[in-house]
């Protein structure tokens, strides 16, 4: 009979999936164990076997309702790699427009709907007001700018992908649909207002960061490895090589996606259906890494666009590089939001974006294996398929963004739990007055 105390938080909310926390406390409130229990799995890797390869980009996006675009594109890239197909340049530009639009809306949804309620109403406000419906009610101006950004991203995804959630137009050899000039003109006209709303978001984020700096610099500051795509040092969410940074900030690996099995380990925990991906050469748990916004911003030498580069510099002046501050993920998300908006503008201004030469006619299946990688909003998204000579899937391995993060989430939760239970640290934190009182 032990005197251990178990705290179970069920469900973990503002999560796009199923999760619970189990914290075990021993004598003197010593934190003995922290588990992030992900209690759901659907076995995509099994039921993709037997499907024709070209259908997989239409099935795999159902893994996630928030980031179906990255899955759609990682999937089609994997099929093209297996079949040795190179889509026309204009198709790549459309795909980039699709993934940047998703990045824009996802980051806005995350910041305003998932994260902001805790900061603007304060972390201890009643759940009935600490949510996005209350943001709409008490901060209508902020809500309108949030909705405008999300709407821009989602609707543009729809023009390119036919559907914003679960797009369908990427196909081995290109895209089934091109952007019309009317559509392009409509979006170009909306760009100035988008950039204005993004700037307002940056300003709001900086206010929040300043107000919560004590929390950011003291809670869950957790050194880990970081993983992410980088295109010759530039943060790129569609293409590049996979980089790994160690906890000291040294780049320890830079490799082609097809070589991932040399570097990526997959640990099967006994308490979560979501596996933990880690840096294989360092072993588990030493090699636990994190992906997502902060990882990409730690890894990037620079951003792809000027305003985003200025935002990154400002962030690094505050939290350094690498930043291990879990709460700085929100800040990095805003840096990337700026890059997404600027990239969309650049792509829309490119005359090729309305080019109709977006699909090859002569695509032929062949037996083989392909790996496709993009960056999803939450991190590196990898699809790897093998197929027979008719192009029917014989094996599938999919690493979703979240799985890079669950090991790191447990590590940072352990740090947070120690602060709360062992050091009574919550009382010592300087929390600001809520921005909005209800």
């Amino acid at each position, binding site marked *: 009979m032990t005197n251990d105390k178990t705290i179970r*938080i069920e469900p973990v*909310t503002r999560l796009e999936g199923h999760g619970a926390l189990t914290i075990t406390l021993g004598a003197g409130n010593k934190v003995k164990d922290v588990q992030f*229990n992900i209690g759901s799995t659907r076995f995509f890797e099994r039921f993709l*076997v037997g499907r024709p390869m070209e*259908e997989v980009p239409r099935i795999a996006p*159902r893994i996630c309702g928030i980031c179906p675009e990255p899955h759609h594109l990682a999937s089609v890239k994997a099929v093209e790699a297996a079949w040795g197909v190179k889509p026309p340049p204009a198709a790549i530009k459309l795909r980039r427009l699709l993934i940047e639009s998703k990045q824009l809306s996802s980051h806005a949804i995350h910041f305003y709907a998932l994260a902001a309620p805790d900061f603007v109403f304060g972390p201890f406000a009643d759940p009935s007001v600490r949510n996005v*419906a209350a943001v709409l009610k008490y901060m209508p101006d902020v809500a309108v700018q949030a909705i405008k950004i999300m709407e821009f991203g989602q609707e543009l995804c729809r023009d390119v992908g*036919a559907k914003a959630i679960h797009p369908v137009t990427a196909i081995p050899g290109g895209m089934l649909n091109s952007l019309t000039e009317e559509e392009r003109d409509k979006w170009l006209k909306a760009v100035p207002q988008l950039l204005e709303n993004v700037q307002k978001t940056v300003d709001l984020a900086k206010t929040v960061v300043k107000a919560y700096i004590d929390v950011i610099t003291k809670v869950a500051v957790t050194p880990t490895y970081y993983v992410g795509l980088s295109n010759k040092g530039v943060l790129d969410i569609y293409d590049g090589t996979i980089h790994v940074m160690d906890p000291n900030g040294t780049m320890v690996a830079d490799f082609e996606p097809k070589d*991932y099995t040399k570097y990526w380990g997959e640990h099967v925990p006994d308490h979560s259906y979501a596996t933990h991906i880690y840096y294989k050469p360092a072993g588990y748990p030493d090699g636990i890494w994190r992906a997502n916004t902060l990882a990409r911003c730690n890894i990037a030498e620079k951003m792809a666009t000027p305003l985003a580069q200025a935002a990154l510099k400002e962030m690094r002046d505050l939290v350094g590089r690498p930043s291990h501050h879990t709460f700085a993920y929100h800040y990095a998300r805003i840096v990337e939001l700026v890059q997404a908006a600027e990239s969309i503008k650049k792509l829309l201004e490119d005359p090729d974006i309305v080019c109709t030469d977006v699909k090859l006619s002569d695509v032929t299946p062949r037996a083989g294996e392909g790996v496709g990688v993009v960056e999803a909003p939450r991190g590196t998204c990898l699809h790897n398929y093998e197929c027979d000579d008719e192009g029917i899937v014989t094996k599938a391995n999919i690493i979703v963004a979240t799985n890079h993060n669950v090991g790191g989430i447990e590590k940072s939760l352990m740090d947070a739990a120690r602060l709360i239970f062992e050091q009574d640290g919550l009382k010592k934190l300087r929390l600001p007055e809520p921005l909005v009182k209800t």
Partner: protein
Amino acid sequence: MHLKLADVLPLLDIKYWQAVVDFKLKDLEGYPDKSIAVGFYEGMARTEEDIHLLKVMREKCSTLIAFGSCSCFGGIPGMANFSTIEECYDAKFRHNKTVNGGEVPTKNVPPIAEVVKPNTDYVEFDVYLPGCPPTSKLILTAVTSLLEGKPMDLPPHAVCHYCKREKKETPISEVLRPYVGQADPKRCLLEQGYICLGSCTWGLCEGPCVNKGATCRGCFGPVPPIMRDHGAASISMLGTYAPMEPDKLVAQVKDPLGTFYRFDYATSHLGRIRIKREDMKKEEHHD
């Protein structure tokens, strides 16, 4: 549409919504029975936790809506029923490119049922809103009619009704895979040889895929009545359009199960047999 949703959202008194509000399962379990006006249940329930939540939702909500094709028909995850659970575990935890010799997790995670059973096997729903995903317009129509206490009139048309492509009653001489050639943007995709489920699928989506060059894969399920066998209807549809030798047709359709039963295998006649087989295995085990 997004702005309209923003008008509706503050009118709701949200009692439980794990992706949005920080209420816990205990809060939901503590509400009096039928005290919540409307509940939306998303996803297919395969774990003990899912099934528990589904049943609690049924107890607490006066009106329970099956929200999305997973909730209505089992959805894409229903394709896991093509395999046994052990085959699923093998690919996920035991033998794959990056896992080797892992064991199925058992600590503080809910057990997973042997097969995906449709949610309707566990509870009765008052409303079905299919789609992968349901459109914003559909959600808004549903929420508005529930708020105003008015009946929900959903148009019964198939996807073809919303498709701008021209049909000429041309029989198919050859089935083409979707990457082949360049489709005529003005002509019916099916008549050009690309398998399209538009004529058998409920058109609540209003045809976004077919109007942007992609064939329909049936994500809104069958045209009403809601539990009609969508897969069987799709196969007989193809038979009508493609007057060729059965052997030839079978050879050209690479993956009938994954094509015609992609979103509703669990509620189809074939899928029912699969579930029944699993139930019988269990009974034998008990004997």
